């Protein structure tokens, strides 16, 4: 009798039943769905990007490196690229400085009003930074509200020297605005990462003699690395490809802005697409590095939490300190929003700290003017359409990835997550290339997508673009829910007579409903906020979404009221998004961070 007791035997597979030799009808459903999803992502993500890239390497119908050489040989272009990278690095670093201490404070302490502060910290996400930029310029420019206030209280004297420009005339302003908008992503990721660490690990370090700082830097921080890197990657790529903020702040010598301007002018030259190719390569490389090297999870080594977390209840002084920390950051972060609201309600605001006269006329204008009103309706239409698509496709993908045994599941997972590595600007460039494509004579003419192109009726193009860009959030959100529902709950249903789809519908869907709704709400919010795709793909005013209309009004020269009208439109956007974010936060709690994982 063998006494060999094999320890390394893998005995229970994670997921449901495997495909069996005699395949039944139901067994074909998951692979068929997976194929459909892969095809859809290929058509609406890979092909457009492929077309943009191929345009970068094509001249007179032949392969050519001429465009690429032209771009990489241009000092101006290289400088723009370096400046873009510097901007993204600075924004990411500032986000880290803002987010990490707050996340640690939230995870390791408990104090009065913690929940409220946690929700308020998400407020910056309800406004695209370029909208806030309008107001920040007003507040922090040389003769802005801050300097006027400082002069009033005697700290500045305009007659002796010119007052300082707090936004630093470009880079610093863009960095501050982007960081104040994006740091909640890192905060959510860091909070989630800390919540996932078994408290026994830092406790073991303390027990072996390490002090709190050493424990944090040698145990906690390395364990948080995957979560932090995931958040940092998203922020870096976002900042690198942001166009709205630099445009409003007048800091335009950036690669993303150059691409936007060229595509906006209808200059679909190969060198523009070469820039697109370079940006895409950078983003994808960073994403891959983040996901597979720096962001590798310690999940395999970690186990289920064995002890309760060390949460310190703060006393009065501690609570005050915590409120101060959160308060300063929240105050800075909501400053752009306050500024936008002030602009929206101001009738006269010249050389005064605050508006000298208030009015509702800009708020009323938004609803009475056909252009602004239709932009709200358009945004709701585009966002609702893309959210519906995302819930169906993202939910299915999550189910296939987490619950089913499907060949090529890794490919499906990679494809569904790929949009995180593809900035909106790049995807929009791809869609421009796709809709400009004319089928060769041997193909039917109806294959041309010109009719849904930016200059015609881009409704479907925008819905698809929004859906493709946000589908990873739904996949992640629903996956997080599925991972928390033990597979044995579905197995129990199957064991008692339910089919695979029946078990999924009766047991799994109700249990992950909160995740589905929250992911849908967030997807909707982000679709309303979408900037890059909106600015590039909506070229006719009739089809402008809110963000494009705000940009249009904010950059209209010669009409003094348009900035206030843009701000008023921004207020409507903020109100809509604040509601949706509050719902998502209430539904998901700390799990909200899982949605922003790369």
């Amino acid at each position: 009798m063998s006494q060999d007791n094999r320890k390394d035997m893998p005995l229970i597979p994670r997921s449901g039943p495997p495909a069996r030799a005699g395949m039944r009808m139901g067994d074909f459903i998951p692979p068929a769905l997976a194929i459909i999803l892969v095809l859809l992502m290929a058509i609406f993500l890979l092909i457009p990007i492929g077309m943009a890239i191929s345009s970068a390497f094509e001249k007179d119908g032949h392969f050519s490196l001429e465009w690429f050489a032209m771009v990489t040989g241009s000092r101006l272009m290289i400088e723009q690229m370096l400046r873009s990278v510097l901007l993204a690095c600075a924004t990411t670093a500032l986000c880290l400085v803002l987010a990490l201490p707050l996340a640690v404070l939230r995870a390791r302490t408990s104090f009065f009003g913690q929940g409220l502060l946690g929700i308020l910290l998400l407020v910056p996400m309800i406004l695209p930074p370029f909208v806030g930029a309008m107001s920040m310029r007003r507040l922090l420019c040389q003769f802005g509200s801050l300097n006027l206030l400082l002069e009033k209280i005697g700290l500045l004297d305009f007659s002796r020297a010119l007052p300082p420009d707090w936004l630093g005339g470009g880079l610093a302003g863009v960095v501050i605005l982007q960081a104040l908008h994006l740091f909640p992503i890192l905060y959510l990721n860091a909070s989630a990462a800390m919540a996932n660490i078994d408290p026994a690990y830092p406790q073991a370090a303390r027990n072996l003699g390490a002090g709190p700082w050493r424990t944090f830097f040698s145990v906690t921080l390395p364990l948080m690395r995957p979560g932090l890197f995931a958040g940092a990657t998203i922020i870096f790529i976002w900042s690198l490809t942001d166009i709205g903020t630099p445009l409003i702040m007048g800091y335009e010598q950036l690669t993303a802005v150059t691409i936007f301007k060229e595509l906006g002018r209808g200059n679909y030259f190969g060198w523009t697409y070469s820039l697109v190719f370079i940006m895409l390569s950078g983003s994808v490389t960073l994403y891959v590095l983040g996901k597979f090297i720096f962001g590798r999870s310690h999940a395999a080594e970690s186990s289920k939490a064995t002890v309760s977390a060390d949460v310190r209840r703060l006393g009065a002084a501690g609570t005050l300190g915590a409120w101060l920390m959160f308060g300063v950051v929240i105050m800075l972060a909501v400053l752009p929003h306050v500024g936008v609201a002030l602009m929206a309600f101001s009738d006269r605001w010249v050389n005064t700290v605050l508006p000298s006269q208030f009015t509702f006329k800009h708020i009323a204008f938004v609803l009475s003017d056909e252009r602004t009103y239709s932009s709200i309706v358009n945004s709701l239409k585009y966002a609702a359409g893309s959210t519906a698509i995302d819930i169906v496709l993202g939910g299915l993908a999550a189910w296939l990835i987490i619950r089913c045994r499907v060949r090529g599941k890794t490919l499906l997972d990679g494809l569904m997550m790929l949009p995180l590595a593809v900035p909106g600007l790049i995807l929009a460039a791809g869609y421009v290339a796709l809709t400009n494509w004319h089928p060769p004579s041997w193909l039917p003419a109806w294959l041309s997508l010109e009719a849904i192109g930016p200059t015609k009726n881009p409704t479907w193009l925008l819905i698809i673009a929004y859906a493709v860009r946000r589908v990873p959030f739904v996949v992640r959100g629903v996956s997080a829910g599925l991972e928390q529902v033990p597979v044995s709950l579905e197995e129990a249903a199957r064991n008692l007579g339910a089919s695979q789809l029946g078990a999924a519908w009766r047991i799994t869907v109700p249990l992950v409903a909160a995740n589905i709704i929250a992911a849908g709400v967030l997807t909707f919010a982000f679709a309303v906020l979408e900037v890059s795709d909106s600015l590039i793909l909506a070229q006719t005013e009739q089809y402008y979404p809110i963000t494009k209309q705000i940009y249009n009004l904010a950059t209209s020269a010669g009409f003094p009221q348009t900035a206030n009208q843009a701000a008023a439109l921004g207020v409507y956007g903020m109100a809509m998004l604040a509601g949706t974010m509050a719902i998502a936060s209430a539904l998901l709690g700390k799990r909200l961070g899982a949605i922003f994982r790369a």
Partner: protein
Amino acid sequence: MISLEIENIGKTYGTGSSAAVALEGVNLSIRPGEFFFLLGPSGCGKTTLLRIIAGLIEPTKGRVLMGERDVTALPPEDRKTAMVFQNYALWPHMTVRRNVEFGPKMRGVPTGRRHELAGECLDMVQMLQYAGRKPSQLSGGQQQRVAVARALAARPDILLLDEPLSNLDARLRQHMRDELRQLVKSSGVTAVYVTHDQKEAMAMADRIAVMNAGRLAQVGEPRQLYDRPGGRFVADFLGEANFLDGRVLAVRADQVRQGGYLVKIATSAGELDAFSDSSIQAGSNVACMVRPERVDVFETQDRPAGAGCIFKAVVRSATYLGQSQQATCVLPGGTPFRIEIPGGQSRLAPSLEISLLIHPRDVVILERDKQNP
């Protein structure tokens, strides 16, 4: 009631050099109405086998037959099994009653009847008064009962239980053993129960299959497995065992037991007599197994009475457990030997010199060397 046949079941994960064999050549025949246990250490393949029976894992080879019906290729929902999961797998969004009604509903039982059925099953496990609660409002023991009721309400041909008591505390587990056995036996269903707890298996099973490294080590009734284990693994896994290696000196027909043999074996500690059901050739190498509690212990100055071999021993370490005392002794030649005596007897202490009386009926001959079978 229905029988269950497992024919040459094998399960391998992966292929080529990375292949891991989880089950190999498992054959079992479980009788209608039998309460059958799969017992073994973690990773021995017992849960894999249970999930193969349920249809949740596809075997690499072999067949599963329920009665005359080959169910190997059937999906789980078409097998008429019902499983009690280790974590109970009660659906948190449904009440206790809806959980229990789920099985009958899936099998097309009309609303009125399934309401009745759920009531009967909940009553059987004394949980009817909790029918309107959600699983999260129940204690571990109550959840376990609901899980059993849910499985029974599905009127399964085969009831499968995957370590259902492992999440309960020791006292409740002991109480639930009797209750669960009574429930299963009164329902008359054929049941397969997986556990790694040998006491649980011994206390509840009609028969036990002991598994090791993906294979069946031995199948039998609890007493048979304990008293006459087929090998070192089974002997060691079911309780404690002492092993003495030796060589057969002589074999003669047993005067008392018809067809039996009395075997004299030379061990490093001295000569040992053992009964055997089959003849063994003199000169064979064997291993003898003796249970610690089957040894009579005397202080050296007393002269032990009764039949059997006597070994001198010195106590090396002793543990008092209340109802019993356990000790590790050293036999002549340095062989360690575990003993267990009732707690009320005179105290065992290190360095105490004692005599051990081992009756031939308490010695099990386990292995024979290959040259002298």
